[in-house]
């Protein structure tokens, strides 16, 4: 046993000794740096996703609030609850809707949640009686009648303390406690309104719930699995339109889907730095293998076997990879705190501690990188004949078969992609995409260089000189390709982050409405119109129109029942799954353009005008008869026109507009949008005091919150792209290092022919700046193309040229590569040609 220990100790000692010695080689340090950068990038993301995944799983059932939830936009039949109790299933009902809370002159839009006694079925509520106190688990049944519990942000927004009495519709309510934690709190994002919990029995007294209210009625059910299944089987055939069932199997809530997509994006950002670092590793390993030929030959002459050589490099790379991975994992662990800080608003709660998986993933990444990118090159040295050491003037002839290194490289890349996305098909697609981009950069670079060579008579002398160097074309194209990919990833995100948001904001007119007033009751319409006229000065000359809103669900087209699953389009299915808002208008609203048919003639009270996009996905044509279910009654109308709508004009926009008067006898509320000068916003609380049921939504607050969220998410991704930049710089040095011997020789030849320092400096700087500029230009062009495609796909924005991006790409590329290249090579200028020849 002791002797085994001794052998391991000896191997370990030798490994460490070798490690120290190899550290002196620039190539080893570059390999280490490339590995460190990639493991740090990967593990910071893996730590983050591991923690947020754990939180998501923990939250999933809590967010759902039960094993099964029935939801509707209309009150649920009492029999649903009665049948559940006969099966021994516990149930709790919640009605939620937006409304305003008022105190003195202040008002705040909130989400009211009126819950029955058994709420919550899963998890527990935690409340505090002061703003600075920690939460104490408290059953909901302790909420007294006439009291409400609210989230801390409501107290902050109104500047009040727990115990304050506020106005909620027609009721006066005491905000007796602060909600510290509620089980179905969910992800915090997009819940711009603080939640207020009241007892269900207090709801009627507020007078806020009318047939036209935008309320959501939920029935939470919890029980053993067979009972729940029996209940579901009983319920499904009884479901009315607008009623849906949700369970854990139905997928994650949309917020968590967004977080998952975000995680994937972060993983891809990390992946890009890993791939770039992989390029750096492959290049460095190539120069290391060239440099180590003499070492291997000498070791062989001294009696080292092939096994010894193989073990030597394997151990070397293993030690290098493992040490870089361990440091990278520690750095990644620290960095994930920054990601958590930036993305905390996207997650509802404190994150649990990370598990051990990220450590494994960091180590695996480093090992796969050396196995795929470094080992194949270095193990080729094993085949080097020892007699090479005596053949001074013969070039090194290693095993020429490139199949194994290429296979290892491609499968290494695939493994790394898979480690990030955990999806075989997606990893294949990404690998193919990456190879296509690399090949594209390579071909375009070769083509550009070919073009430059053909017009070189017109070029400056230094540029001409470098184009004439033997093999320079290949070398330059390689550099352009690796820098191009690095710059592309950086520029794409810059384009997405700044360009898109700015372009979208630029499409808004200067005085675009910043307030939406909803829930205006029919009897308040004429008084509202008078009030608006009265305040017309504040409204900056705009004349807002009040639109009725009636909720209806499309059930038949030309008498044929429509089923959501018959349509491929997600938009169509979305429209059919829930109730749509129907409105009417005397004249074509601003931002709308008729594409087919005629607008409603005065006095006509039948006909529908449908938004062209939705008409297309529902395959509608003029004259089709649509049937809507409005509060249980059929509403049948022919399609008389189609129109396009500018959705982003901040005006109330509707998919479906009916002829004026067509909805006269249907339950409805009214809405409008206004521009209110930010200096005169006290006008809004006065309005709410006058009309208690109206809810005012401040769009600018919502917009700025969305913008902050997007900005922070983009910043998190950009943090990751910093690693891409670092990897890019590693590639720069790796590429320069791999060509240093060749360049040393060229400089020696040029100097021996009488080239001055100034000439060499000029020619080196021109070469690198040209490489950087071409790489930057290619990268910016591709980034512009991709960002425009995304802009069109995601935001419906028209393609736009961004010459600034091209200029930034070219300039940044030229400066970065020019400086890096010059700094790397300038040491060679000082050496005399004789000394250069003597160096090995």
């Amino acid at each position, binding site marked *: 046993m002791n002797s085994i220990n001794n052998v391991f100790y*000896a191997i370990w000692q*030798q490994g460490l000794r070798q490690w120290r*010695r*190899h550290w*002196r*080689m620039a190539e080893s340090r570059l390999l280490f740096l490339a590995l460190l950068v990639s493991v740090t990038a990967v593990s910071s993301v893996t730590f983050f996703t591991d923690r947020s995944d754990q939180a998501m799983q923990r939250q999933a059932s809590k967010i759902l609030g039960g094993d099964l939830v029935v939801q509707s936009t209309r009150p649920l039949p009492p029999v649903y609850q009665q049948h559940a109790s006969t099966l021994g299933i516990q149930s709790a009902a919640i009605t939620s809707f937006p409304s305003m809370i008022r105190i003195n002159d202040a008002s705040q839009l909130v989400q009211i949640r009126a819950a029955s006694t058994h709420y919550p079925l899963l998890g527990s509520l935690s409340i505090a009686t002061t703003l600075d106190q920690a939460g104490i688990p408290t059953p909901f049944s302790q909420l007294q009648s006439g009291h409400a519990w609210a989230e801390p942000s409501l107290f902050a927004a109104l500047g009040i303390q727990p115990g304050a009495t506020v106005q909620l519709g027609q009721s006066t309510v005491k905000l007796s406690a602060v909600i510290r934690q509620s089980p179905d709190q969910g992800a915090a994002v997009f819940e711009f309104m603080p939640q207020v919990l009241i007892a269900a029995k207090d709801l009627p007294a507020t007078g806020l719930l009318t047939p036209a209210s935008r309320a959501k009625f939920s029935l939470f059910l919890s029980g053993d699995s067979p009972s729940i299944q029996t209940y579901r089987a009983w319920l499904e055939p009884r479901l009315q339109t607008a009623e849906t069932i949700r369970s854990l199997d139905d997928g994650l809530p949309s917020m968590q889907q967004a977080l998952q997509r975000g995680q994937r994006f972060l993983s891809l950002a990390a992946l890009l730095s890993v791939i770039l670092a992989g390029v750096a590793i492959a290049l460095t390993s190539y120069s290391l293998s060239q440099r180590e030929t*003499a*070492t291997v030959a*000498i*070791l*062989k*002459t*001294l*009696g*080292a*076997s*092939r*096994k*010894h050589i193989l073990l030597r490099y394997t151990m070397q790379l293993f030690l290098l990879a493992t040490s870089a991975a361990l440091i990278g994992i520690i750095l990644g662990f620290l960095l994930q705190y920054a990601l958590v800080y930036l993305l905390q608003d996207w997650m509802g709660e404190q994150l649990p501690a990370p598990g051990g998986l990220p450590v494994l993933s960091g180590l695996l990444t480093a090992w796969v990188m050396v196995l795929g990118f470094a080992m194949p090159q270095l193990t080729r040295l094993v085949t080097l*004949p*020892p*007699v090479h*050491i*005596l*053949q*001074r003037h013969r070039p090194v002839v290693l095993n020429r078969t490139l199949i194994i290194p290429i296979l290892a490289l491609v499968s290494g890349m695939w493994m790394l992609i898979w480690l990030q996305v955990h999806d075989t098909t997606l990893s294949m697609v990404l690998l193919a995409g990456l190879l296509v981009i690399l090949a594209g950069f390579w071909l375009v670079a070769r083509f550009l260089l070919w073009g430059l060579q053909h017009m070189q008579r017109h070029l400056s002398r230094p540029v001409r000189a470098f184009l004439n160097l033997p093999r320079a074309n290949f070398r330059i194209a390689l550099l352009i390709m690796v820098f191009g990919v690095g710059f592309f990833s950086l520029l794409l995100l810059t384009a997405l982050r700044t360009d898109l948001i700015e372009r979208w904001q630029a499409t808004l007119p200067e005085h675009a409405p910043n307030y939406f007033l909803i829930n205006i009751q029919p009897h308040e319409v004429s008084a509202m119109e008078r009030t608006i006229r009265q305040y017309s000065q504040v409204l900056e000359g705009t004349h807002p129109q009040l639109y009725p809103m009636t909720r209806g669900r499309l059930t038949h087209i030309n008498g044929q029942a429509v089923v959501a699953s018959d349509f491929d389009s997600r938009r169509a299915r979305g429209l059919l799954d829930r109730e749509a808002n129907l409105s009417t208008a005397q004249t074509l609203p601003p931002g709308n353009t008729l594409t087919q048919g005629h607008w409603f003639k005065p006095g006509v009270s039948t006909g529908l005008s449908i938004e062209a996009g939705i008409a297309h996905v529902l395959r509608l044509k003029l004259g089709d008869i649509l049937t809507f279910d409005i509060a249980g009654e059929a509403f049948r109308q022919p399609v008389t026109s189609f129109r396009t709508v500018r959705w982003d004009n901040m005006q109330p926009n509707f998919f479906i507009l009916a002829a004026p008067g067509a909805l006269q006898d249907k339950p409805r509320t009214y809405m409008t949008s206004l521009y209110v000068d930010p200096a005169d916003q006290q006008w809004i609380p006065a309005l709410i005091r006058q009309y208690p049921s109206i809810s005012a939504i401040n769009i600018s607050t919502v917009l700025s919150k969305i913008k902050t969220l997007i900005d922070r998410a983009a910043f998190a991704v950009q943090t990751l792209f910093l690693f891409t930049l670092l990897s890019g710089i590693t590639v720069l040095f790796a590429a320069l290092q791999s060509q240093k011997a060749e360049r040393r020789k060229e400089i020696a030849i040029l100097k021996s022919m009488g080239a001055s320092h100034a000439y060499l400096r000029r020619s080196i700087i021109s070469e690198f700046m040209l490489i950087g500029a071409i790489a930057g230009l290619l990268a910016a062009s591709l980034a512009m193309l991709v960002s425009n495609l995304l802009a069109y796909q995601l935001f419906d924005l028209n393609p736009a040229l961004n010459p600034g991006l091209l200029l930034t790409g070219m300039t940044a590329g030229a400066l970065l590569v020019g400086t890096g290249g010059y700094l790397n090579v300038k040491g060679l200028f000082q050496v005399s040609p004789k000394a250069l020849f*003597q160096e*090995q």
Partner: protein
Amino acid sequence: MTQIPTAPSRNTSITSSHLSKKIPLKSAQDLIILDNITLHIETGTSVAITGTSGSGKTTLLGILAGLDLPSSGQVHLLGTEISQLDEDQRARLRLGKVGFVYQSFHLMSHLTALENVMLPLELDHTIAAPQQQATQALQQVGLGARLNHLPSQLSGGEQQRVALARAFVTHPKILFADEPTGNLDQQTGHEIIEHLFTLQAQYRTTLVLVTHDPALAARCERHYRLEQAQLELQ
């Protein structure tokens, strides 16, 4: 041409019999570098091989050292016929018993003088205290004060002395030297030769030396000239 006894004897370090090396060419006749060479080098002696550039001296050296294999004929290195051995078996045969000195020193640029000399000792795990032995070897060549210098911090002569220390540190039975003074000025070359022959005598090492320098060749006990693929004793 000189005929030398072909059978290896107890006092023989290297023997070659009917050794030939040909390079097959696609478009012309085979290129014959060495033709039917028979050679017998006794233990502890010094042998010089001279010849014009491209005459095949280095090829012969490589084959005698077991770094390369002949196209035909036999080579016995330390009593073992090498043409039947694979590369690893030949390497094992050299381990600790064969040393090399090259024209361009071939020191590892990232290793210090001491670490370069320790290299052959580290290959043999049975050797104790390699650092101590390597230090002694460097002291022997007058570099006791430069142990931790990198090759780039040493002059050409000093680098070749490190190479000598590396070659002799295992007390090899045979030393192959390929133009050991080719990259040095006359004075430094002379010093190196003195060190080389002193160490060779001290360890009774068989020395096979390839050189252009007639004066250096003359210091060896035997001097062969390689011309037109044939070896002639001078």
